[in-house]
C-alpha cells in the first residue's frame, strides 16, 4: 500500500461524506429531529478529520505519478490548489460541528448562529470538495476533462484558490513566521495535555477527589489547543509537504492523532463519560472508561514522541 492507493482510498470520504452530512443536516432542520442533527454533526467532524490524511496522501501520490507519461503537472497543481482551499472550509465546518455537539446537551434548542454557520460552511465545503474531486479525476481521466473549464464559476473560483507553490513559499520564506507557528504548536500541546490529558488521568484514578463532570468543563480548552495545532500543523505541512510526507514518524503521528481523537469521541458516545459523571468524589471509574482513558493518554503521548522524531526539521529550517 503506497500513497496513491491510500489517497484513492481516502479521497472519496470528504466529498461523499460532506454531501451525506448536508443531507442529514437539512433533513433535521425540516423535520426538527435532534438525533438526525447530531448524526450530521458527527459526520461533519469525521469528515474534517479524514480530510487531513486525504490531503497529506495527495502530496505523496503526486510525487509518485508526476513523471508518468500523460500526466500534466498543471492539472495536478490545479487539483492541489482546489484541495488547499476546500480543506480550510472543511475544517471550519468540523469546528462548528464540534461546538454544536458541545452545546447540544446544554441547550434545549440548537443555537441559531451556529446552525446558520454550519449550513453555509457545509454547503460551500460540499461544492469545493466536489470541485477538488473533479479536478483530481481529470489528472488520470482525459475523458472527463474540460467540460466546465472556462465557465464563469470556474474562473471565479480559481481566482481564490492558492497557487500551491506560492502558498508553500509563503510559509517558509520567513523563519520568524515558522518559529511563531511552532511556538503556537507547543502551546496547543500544553493546553491539550493539561485538560484532556488530566481528564484521562482522573478517570484512571489519579486525584480522585476531583469530580469528572467538573473537570470536563476544561475540555473545550483542550479542543481549542487541538484546533491551534491542527491549523499550525497543516500550515507547516503546506510549507514543506514533501519533507513531511517522506518521514515515517510524521505518517505515524497523523495515524496516532486520528486514533487519539477517535478514543476521545468514544469516551463520550459510548456512555463512558455519563457513567463517570455520576461518580462521587473519591470513587473509582468503571473499567470500560479506564480502558478508553488509558488508550487515549498513551496515544496523545505517542503523538508527542512521534512529532519529536520528525527529525531534521529544526536544523533544516533554522539555518
Amino acid at each position, binding site marked *: 500500500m503506497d500513497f496513491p492507493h491510500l489517497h484513492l482510498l481516502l479521497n472519496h470520504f470528504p466529498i461523499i461524506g460532506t454531501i451525506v452530512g448536508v443531507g442529514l443536516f437539512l433533513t433535521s432542520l425540516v423535520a426538527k429531529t435532534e438525533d438526525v442533527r447530531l448524526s450530521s454533526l458527527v459526520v461533519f467532524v469525521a469528515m474534517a478529520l479524514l480530510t487531513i490524511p486525504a490531503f497529506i496522501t495527495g502530496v505523496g501520490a503526486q510525487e509518485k505519478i508526476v513523471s508518468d507519461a500523460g500526466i500534466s503537472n498543471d492539472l495536478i497543481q490545479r487539483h492541489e490548489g482546489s484541495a488547499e482551499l476546500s480543506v480550510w472550509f472543511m475544517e471550519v465546518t468540523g469546528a462548528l460541528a464540534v461546538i454544536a455537539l458541545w452545546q447540544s446537551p446544554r441547550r434545549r434548542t440548537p443555537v441559531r448562529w451556529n446552525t446558520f454557520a454550519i449550513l453555509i460552511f457545509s454547503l460551500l465545503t460540499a461544492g469545493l470538495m466536489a470541485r477538488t474531486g473533479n479536478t483530481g479525476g481529470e489528472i488520470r481521466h482525459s475523458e472527463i476533462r474540460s467540460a466546465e473549464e472556462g465557465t464563469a464559476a470556474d474562473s471565479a473560483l480559481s481566482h481564490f484558490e492558492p497557487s500551491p507553490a506560492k502558498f508553500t513559499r509563503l510559509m517558509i520564506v520567513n*523563519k*520568524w513566521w*515558522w*518559529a511563531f507557528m*511552532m*511556538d503556537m504548536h*507547543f*502551546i496547543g*500541546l*500544553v*493546553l*491539550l*495535555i*493539561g*485538560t484532556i*490529558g*488530566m481528564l484521562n*488521568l482522573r478517570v484512571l484514578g*489519579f*486525584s480522585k*477527589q*476531583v*469530580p469528572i*463532570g*467538573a*473537570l470536563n*468543563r*476544561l475540555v473545550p*480548552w483542550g479542543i481549542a489547543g487541538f484546533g491551534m495545532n491542527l491549523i499550525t500543523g497543516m500550515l507547516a505541512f503546506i510549507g514543506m509537504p514533501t519533507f513531511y510526507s517522506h518521514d515515517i514518524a510524521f505518517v505515524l503521528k497523523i495515524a496516532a492523532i486520528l486514533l487519539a481523537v477517535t478514543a476521545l469521541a468514544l469516551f463520550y458516545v459510548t456512555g463512558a463519560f455519563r457513567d463517570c459523571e455520576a461518580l462521587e*468524589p473519591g470513587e473509582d471509574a468503571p473499567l470500560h472508561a479506564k480502558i478508553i482513558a488509558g488508550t487515549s493518554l498513551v496515544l496523545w*503521548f505517542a503523538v*508527542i*514522541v512521534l*512529532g*519529536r*522524531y520528525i*527529525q531534521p526539521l*529544526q536544523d533544516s529550517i*533554522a*539555518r
Partner: protein
Amino acid sequence: MREASLTVPLFLNALEQTGLSTWLRESESIFGFYFILVFHTIGLALVVGPNAAIDLRILGVAPEIPVPALRNWFNLMWLGLAINVVSGIFLVLAYPSKAFTNPDFYLKLTLVGFAIWNLQRMKRQLFDDATQSESAMFAKGRTLAVWSLVLWAGVITAGRLLAYTCSYLVYGVPC
C-alpha cells in the same frame, strides 16, 4: 575560525569533545539526541499542562472543580520538572557552545526560574493554607495565575526560539 576561538570559551570545546557529548550529537540511534528531546517535551507537558489548567480554574473556568482537590497535581508537576532538569542538562551537554553563546538561553533559564518561583508561591498561598476562605484564596490567586500563564508562555517561546537564534552550532562552527 580564529574569531570563533576568541569568543567562545575553551572549556565548551573540551566539553564537546567528551564521549558523551559527541555521542549525543552524532549518534544515529533513536536513543540519541531526539530521545532526550522527547523527554524534554513530555516534561514540559507535565509541568505546564496541569499548571495552565489550575490557572484557568482560578481565573473562573470550570468553577465546579474543588480547588483543594487539585493539590495532587503538584506531584505531577514536580515530576515533570525533574524530567526537564535532567533532560535539559543532557541537551546542554550535547551542544554546550550553542547554548552558552546564545542570550536567549539565559533568558529562558531566567524565565524558568521565575515560573518555578511563581508556582511555589501558588502552592504555598493557595493550597497549603486550608483555613482560608475561598474568596480570599481567589483574590490572591488571580495575579499568580495570570503570571503563571505569562511566564510559561514566555518559557515555551524562549525555548522554541533557541532553535532559530543560535550563533554557534558547535565550537568554531557558526549556525
